[in-house]
């Protein structure tokens, strides 16, 4: 993929912090002007320049664009598309290369959690791993339309989920196979939510989840597994690979709504027990 010039700033561009920018922001000492620091704080890798500028009421939009160009020259920010890991292919899943196994400590923890997860799945139709729930407020403060990816190979069920999420205010992409998943994950705007079917025609949903959790930009994206199998083994696999929640089929609209709100931190009560 060809890199774009980050020094020429357009309103629709999306910037993200470079590792240097993150260090600058977290370091105890900085020589940046307060407005530049605020701009770094507001740069989340998902909001456009126009959206960031709208939130910075004390700084006019042209000055925000100039500041982005200045910060890009200093190596503190870059276009999000330039920073995305383009190596998100799934070739390794079909080779004999062994997958990294979770540690014994991690396994012991998820085994215990899986037991309670299955009980919740069977009783309520969904299970949300609240320890991983989003730390960001919901709805997002930047005002942009949230994006969701629905991975489902049954066209009717996929359309059902897409319709529901669109009704709930999401911009939804419906994908059904490995190539479409990769294409959707490479879009400039990171998804705010992924609903992920387990059994897909050419890839296992748990493998997609694992790959996402190993990816720098995608590892914190909330993922809800949508599955027909509420077995302890399935929940165990998903927890070990970093799922945020589970939803069993048949999918009930009310259950779907509750699970999504809990994972996104939209319910005040759902933040109880969150880590970090």
């Amino acid at each position: 993929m060809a890199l774009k010039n980050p020094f020429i700033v357009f309103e629709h561009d999306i910037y993200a912090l470079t590792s240097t920018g993150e260090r600058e922001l977290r370091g105890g000492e900085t020589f940046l002007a307060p407005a530049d620091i605020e701009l770094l704080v507001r740069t989340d890798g998902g909001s456009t320049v126009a959206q960031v500028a709208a939130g910075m009421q004390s700084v006019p939009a042209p000055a925000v664009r100039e500041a982005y160009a200045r910060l890009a020259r200093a190596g503190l920010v870059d276009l999000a598309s330039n920073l995305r890991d383009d190596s998100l292919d799934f070739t390794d899943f079909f080779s004999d290369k062994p997958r990294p196994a979770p540690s014994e400590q991690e396994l012991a923890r998820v085994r215990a959690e899986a037991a309670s997860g299955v009980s919740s799945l069977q009783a309520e139709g969904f299970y949300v791993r609240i320890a991983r729930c989003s730390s960001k407020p919901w709805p997002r403060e930047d005002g942009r339309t949230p994006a969701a990816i629905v991975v489902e190979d049954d066209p009717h069920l996929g359309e059902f989920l897409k319709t529901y999420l669109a009704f709930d205010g999401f911009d939804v992409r419906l994908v059904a196979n490995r190539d479409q998943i990769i294409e959707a994950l490479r879009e400039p705007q990171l998804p705010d939510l992924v609903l992920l079917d387990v059994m897909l025609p050419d890839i296992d949903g748990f493998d997609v989840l694992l790959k996402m959790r190993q990816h720098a930009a995608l590892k914190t994206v909330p993922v809800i597994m949508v599955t027909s199998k509420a077995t302890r083994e399935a929940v165990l696999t998903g927890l070990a690979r970093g799922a945020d929640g589970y939803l069993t089929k048949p999918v009930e609209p009310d259950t779907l709504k509750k699970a999504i709100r809990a994972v996104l931190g939209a319910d005040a009560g759902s933040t109880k027990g969150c880590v970090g």
Partner: protein
Amino acid sequence: MRAEDFRRHLDALGADYRACLPAKVAAIRSLWRHSMSGVGAPEGLTELKRELHTLAGSARTFGVADVGELARAAESLLDACCERGTPPDAGSVTELARLIDAIQRSVAGA
């Protein structure tokens, strides 16, 4: 999208799903015949299991619960065979054939 448009869209989606069910079941029956003829097995059985799995999840979502339950039972039976790593024995074949017939009858009566 307004709430009534949302409901209307879901109703239309459910109707379209039920209209497509005979074709889905025909595909399952074809995979079953293919698997039992020995051509393409065990790949055929894996594909059959996947189709039954998809049908089990979607049918219950769109209110055709009996079809979903039958598909779930057939999938579980195939799951057990796959776990053992052996082709279905005579008893399992008979039961799978019965379940697939029952799915077809249920769809015809839906």
